[in-house]
């Protein structure tokens, strides 16, 4: 049996992929057990405490911010009807399209001493130009605000889905026991969806500690900026890896917590008798409060940065489609679409292998493959760089020094490892919707393996395939640190262009690539908002006839 499995392509391929995905991460972790250089001693004695303090401060600030905004708005749009609710329930997802680094750039443009907002205040009230109304944002507070307003949709999304699935009866029982509406919210509503909230919060925290662009722009020293400066400032690859390994341990801890919360989440709505929450209409000041509470995050996280970007683009640089922009956009879309196709195809092969072979080991391997999503881009870039150097030494030593290193291969590999989970979750749910009986019947009709995949499963997975591609494309377009490190020489993407222009304080030049990134980022939001509607209990999907056969 063991040797039979060794020759089975449906087992070999996922195993090779697993090795390819895991090796870069193992390489990083293993660095902790090697020698420590003088640079490490220096960082350990003088800067590591600063990295840890700043990172923890940002984590706490972002947690508080995302919880208040995410859970509060999810509760309001689920349990109440108020002015603008129909728009706000999906608009609250819009900041998903704005990566933290773009919000950081636009906030700088808006709220810096001589930014648009301060200028406006001075002009309106004829104040002297030394007068500064908005406080400085280039610090840990500013970073926490930026992360809160760009990442709260993670908490909003999971909380909203959990609230939708929460039975009205639970809340009504609370009211009969003498609790006020607010007491019902924090004594029953929140505790009953706590695992979902924690799962969303863990995603926020993983994104927060992975970020490089925003903290670097605000000159806040965190682990990621530390890794970057150890590598490109001190030229000490090994110390950079050791810092990355420490960060990776934190990420893995968050990941385990997230998985654990998700598992518990299954039991949180275990009632067989379900009556959906009936939204109550708000009037007067309560109506205004609810509208404002849900409008402000959308305004700060999406509308404001886009107004600033549009202002830059229209006032300073109208040649949106110049040659450089077109080349950069082409590079980005080429990379994103290629990555998306690879991710979707791999996800199909792996999920088919699991379904077809019913192999438990494959199932475990596949769950490891999705871990890459949580690994910060910077760490992945380090691991992939080392893997490529190793491969170059192994394969091309006699011919050329570096073939794979510095090529698109590394960049695509890093993107695939990072984005695979997105494609996998969509394809996996697509496979789950295909009745197993179709496979049974197909097998009796002399159809198995490749033929079963191509003639039965693939046509039924078209929507999942396209959805997974959109999710991956929007993720790849936003990804900054991995692109910055692994790109071939002079190969710019939209994210890199934005970063470079912003680093040079050429914000008006950064507008065009930023708008393109936000524009593409809107696509998965449309899908997400549709998914929320479909997740309502009792929703009947009339478009999909496949499920019933």
């Amino acid at each position, binding site marked *: 049996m063991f040797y039979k499995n060794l020759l089975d392509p449906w087992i070999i391929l996922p195993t090779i992929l697993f090795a390819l995905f895991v090796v870069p991460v193992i390489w990083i972790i293993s660095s902790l057990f090697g020698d420590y250089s003088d640079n490490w001693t220096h960082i350990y004695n003088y800067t590591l405490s600063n990295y840890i303090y700043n990172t923890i401060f940002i984590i706490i600030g972002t947690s508080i911010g995302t919880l208040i905004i995410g859970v509060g708005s999810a509760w309001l749009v689920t349990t109440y009807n108020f002015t603008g609710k129909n728009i706000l329930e999906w608009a609250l997802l819009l900041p998903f399209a704005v990566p933290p680094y773009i919000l950081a750039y636009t906030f700088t443009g808006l709220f810096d001493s001589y930014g648009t907002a301060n200028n406006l205040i001075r002009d309106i009230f004829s104040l002297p130009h030394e007068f500064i109304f908005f406080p400085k944002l280039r610090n840990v507070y500013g970073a926490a605000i930026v992360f809160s307003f760009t990442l709260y949709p993670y908490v909003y999304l999971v909380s909203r889905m959990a609230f939708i699935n929460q039975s009205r009866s639970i809340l009504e029982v609370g009211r009969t026991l003498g609790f006020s509406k607010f007491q019902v919210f924090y004594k029953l509503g929140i505790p009953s969806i706590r695992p979902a909230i924690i799962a969303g919060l863990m995603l926020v925290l993983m994104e927060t500690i992975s970020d490089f662009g925003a903290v670097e722009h605000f000159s806040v020293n965190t682990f990621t900026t530390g890794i970057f400066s150890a590598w490109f400032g001190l030229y000490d690859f090994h110390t950079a890896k050791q810092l990355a390994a420490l960060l990776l341990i934190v990420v893995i801890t968050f990941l385990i917590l997230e998985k654990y919360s998700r598992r518990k989440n299954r039991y949180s709505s275990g009632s067989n008798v379900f009556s959906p929450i009936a939204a109550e209409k708000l009037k007067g000041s309560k109506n205004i409060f609810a509208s404002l509470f849900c409008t402000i995050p959308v305004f700060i996280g999406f509308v404001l940065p886009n107004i600033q970007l549009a202002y830059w683009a229209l006032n300073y640089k109208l040649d949106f489609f110049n040659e450089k922009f077109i080349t950069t956009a082409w590079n980005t879309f080429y990379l994103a679409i290629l990555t998306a196709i690879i991710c979707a195809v791999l996800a199909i092969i792996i999920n088919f292998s699991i379904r077809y072979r019913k192999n438990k080991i494959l199932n475990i391997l596949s769950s490891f493959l999705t871990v890459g999503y949580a690994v910060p881009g910077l760490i992945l870039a380090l691991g992939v760089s080392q893997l490529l150097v190793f491969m170059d030494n192994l394969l091309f030593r006699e011919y050329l020094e570096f073939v794979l290193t510095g090529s698109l291969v590394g960049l695509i590999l890093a993107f695939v490892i990072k984005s695979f989970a997105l494609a996998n979750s969509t394809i996996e749910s697509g496979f789950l919707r295909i*009745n197993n*009986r*179709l496979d*049974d*019947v*197909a*097998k*009796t*009709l*002399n*159809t*198995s393996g490749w033929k079963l995949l191509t*003639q*039965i499963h693939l*046509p*039924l997975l078209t929507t999942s395939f396209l959805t997974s591609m959109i999710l991956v494309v929007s993720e790849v377009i936003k990804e900054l640190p991995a692109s910055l490190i692994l790109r071939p020489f002079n190969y710019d993407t939209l994210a890199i262009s934005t970063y470079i222009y912003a680093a040079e304080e050429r914000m008006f030049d950064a507008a065009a690539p930023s708008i393109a990134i936000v524009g593409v980022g809107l696509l998965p939001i449309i899908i997400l908002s549709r998914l929320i509607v479909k997740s309502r209990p009792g929703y009947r999907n009339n478009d999909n*006839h*496949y499920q*019933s*056969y």
Partner: protein
Amino acid sequence: MTEIILEIKNLRHSFNTDMEVLKGINLNVSRGEIVSILGPSGCGKTTLLRIIAGLENQSGGTVNISDTIVSDSKNFVPTEKRDIGLVVQERALFPHLTIIKNVEFGLKGRRDEKYKTALNLLKLFKVDVYANNYPHEISSGEQQRVAMARAMAPNPKILLMDEPFGALDHALKSELRDETKKIFKDNGTTAIIVSHDFEDAISMSDHVLIIDDGLVAQEGPAKDLIPITRNNSFKIA
């Protein structure tokens, strides 16, 4: 002498070590015979069908199809090489294919020949007018007819049917049972029907097997089958 198409000897199966679903089933099915396997929910009848189809690998015993061992402790012929047909309660029609394409799916040979065979079968089951429709465009009774046409198309040695009329209303069931039996008998089809419905068994089959607690409790001609209304079960007189 009647040719034995399916021979099952001392078939045992357990999903985990401490729960044995089948505890030693013996069964012979002759060519052209229609056999019903009856029993309460969870007695192991569907598992038995899945083992015959090769969708499940038994823990012990032997399954022979046309004098060839298709599964025992050493051999396992995969489903697609067993030359069997399968009809399930959910119909499991391929939703992205038209009715005619569903029936053509398991056929080999030239395109026009496949089309002709498929259309003839659809005519036989009176659903040829829907040849170019998709499965969701026809009723559940019509879908079941298509599912049977599709399973019969490659002319399998045995047709396995798992609660084939389970999801249909009473009048439709009765009509479809009579028509199906006639088609099977006219074509000399060998079929095994798994059901918990007394009417299915008595009206369709020649021979009946009652399974209880993983064992063959009773077997005999279908005409001798008697329902026991007290506990909604059956016995053979």
